[in-house]
């Protein structure tokens, strides 16, 4: 593997990891709220969270471009066409997978365990951290892994808001596209091999966690 391939792989893994860690807090909170609370607008939140999963990634990318572009409401953050744009695209695309995997895990935690913890004097916060989250733990980890695998493969939204700047925003999927486009078959094949290996490992671990 050349130094450049190594850089692309390392960069992709790094930003995917940052995106996954970043989305973990909001995603878990969202999954828990959807599993445990009833409130007006719940269906709206459910749908909004699902949106990036069903919309064309390029469309999601365009929305993000408008929001974070120079003239957008978050333009001042200077995110577009930096590594942080890659993280943003990956996080937004990974969120629905995390929420959809973690939510049933929270729903399956018997309420009686939570009531028991409360009866032993635990505050709602302590109940969550010491009982609910550990009992839903597998689902949360599986969801995070799915979000991570999705992040590794993110293309549409990434190309819209981060571009393909070698050494700065170029990720594996975008590099594959560029290599194939420009007839660099050997490079495309090498990148493809790396992608398959990474995605397979992540999906495999995720499946194992959900099953047993």
């Amino acid at each position: 593997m050349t130094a450049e391939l190594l850089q692309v792989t390392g960069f992709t893994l790094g930003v995917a990891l940052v995106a996954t860690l970043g989305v973990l807090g909001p995603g878990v909170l969202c999954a828990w709220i959807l599993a445990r609370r009833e409130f007006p607008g719940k269906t709206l939140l459910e749908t909004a969270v699902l949106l990036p999963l069903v919309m064309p990634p390029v469309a999601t990318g365009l929305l993000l471009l408008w929001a974070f572009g120079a003239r957008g409401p978050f333009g001042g953050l200077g995110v577009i066409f930096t590594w942080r744009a890659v993280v943003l695209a990956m996080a937004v695309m990974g969120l629905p997978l995390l929420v959809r995997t973690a939510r049933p895990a929270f729903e399956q935690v018997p309420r009686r365990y939570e009531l028991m913890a409360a009866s032993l004097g635990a505050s709602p916060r302590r109940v969550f951290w010491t009982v609910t989250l550990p009992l839903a733990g597998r689902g949360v980890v599986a969801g995070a892994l799915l979000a991570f695998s999705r992040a590794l493969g993110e293309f549409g939204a990434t190309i819209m808001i981060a571009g393909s700047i070698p050494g700065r925003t170029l990720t594996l999927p975008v590099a594959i596209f560029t290599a194939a486009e420009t007839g660099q078959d050997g490079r495309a094949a090498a990148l493809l091999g790396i992608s398959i290996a990474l995605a397979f490992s992540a999906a495999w671990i995720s499946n194992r966690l959900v099953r047993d």
Partner: protein
Amino acid sequence: MSMSLSVRLQLTLRQGEFTLTVDEAFEARVLALYGPSGAGKTSLLEAIAGWREPQAGKIAVGGRLLYASARGINVPVARRGVGYVPQDGLLFPHLTVRGNVAYGLPTTGARPDAVDRVSAILDLGELVERPVSTLSGGERQRVALARALVASPAILLLDEPLGGVDAARRQRILPYVSRVRDELNVPMIYVTHQAHEARAVADQVLMLDEGRVVNRGSVDLLPS
């Protein structure tokens, strides 16, 4: 001399077709709630613990009002000081025996030696490092009992503690309940459908059937 506790229960609780109506005041060291299954015994315990909200009524334990629908009082579960041992024990499956027993420690400010003291009374010694999944029915009950006691409750609710224990081992659990009563002075409500169990641990009895109190008084009222 053991403490006795005054308890006031005046409530209506509906679940589907079933209605539980109780209007009683009693003072006892150990009160047996006696009746066939479906009588409403567990529902009553859950109402006292705050796990289930009655439609209306009043619950007071030791003079402290835990629930009063007319005054909008409904003390949160975590602040009721009610120790509850459900029939299945409900041990936290992700914690060891020690983790379960010590769970009630930090937030209640109980003495750190509470775990050791309670473990000694209930003979938990060799169980403490075991994962919960390896315990027998009787061991689970002892651990659940210890866990409730470590949180120093004002009252302890035991729901058929011998229910999930095989017949041969039942006689080994009752003495532990008596030790808790005599050595820790914790007032209890003990749910059972076995008259001999009630007589062995309780001084007073409330007999329930189909959601109503059918008799009450000394345990001598129980069939022999």
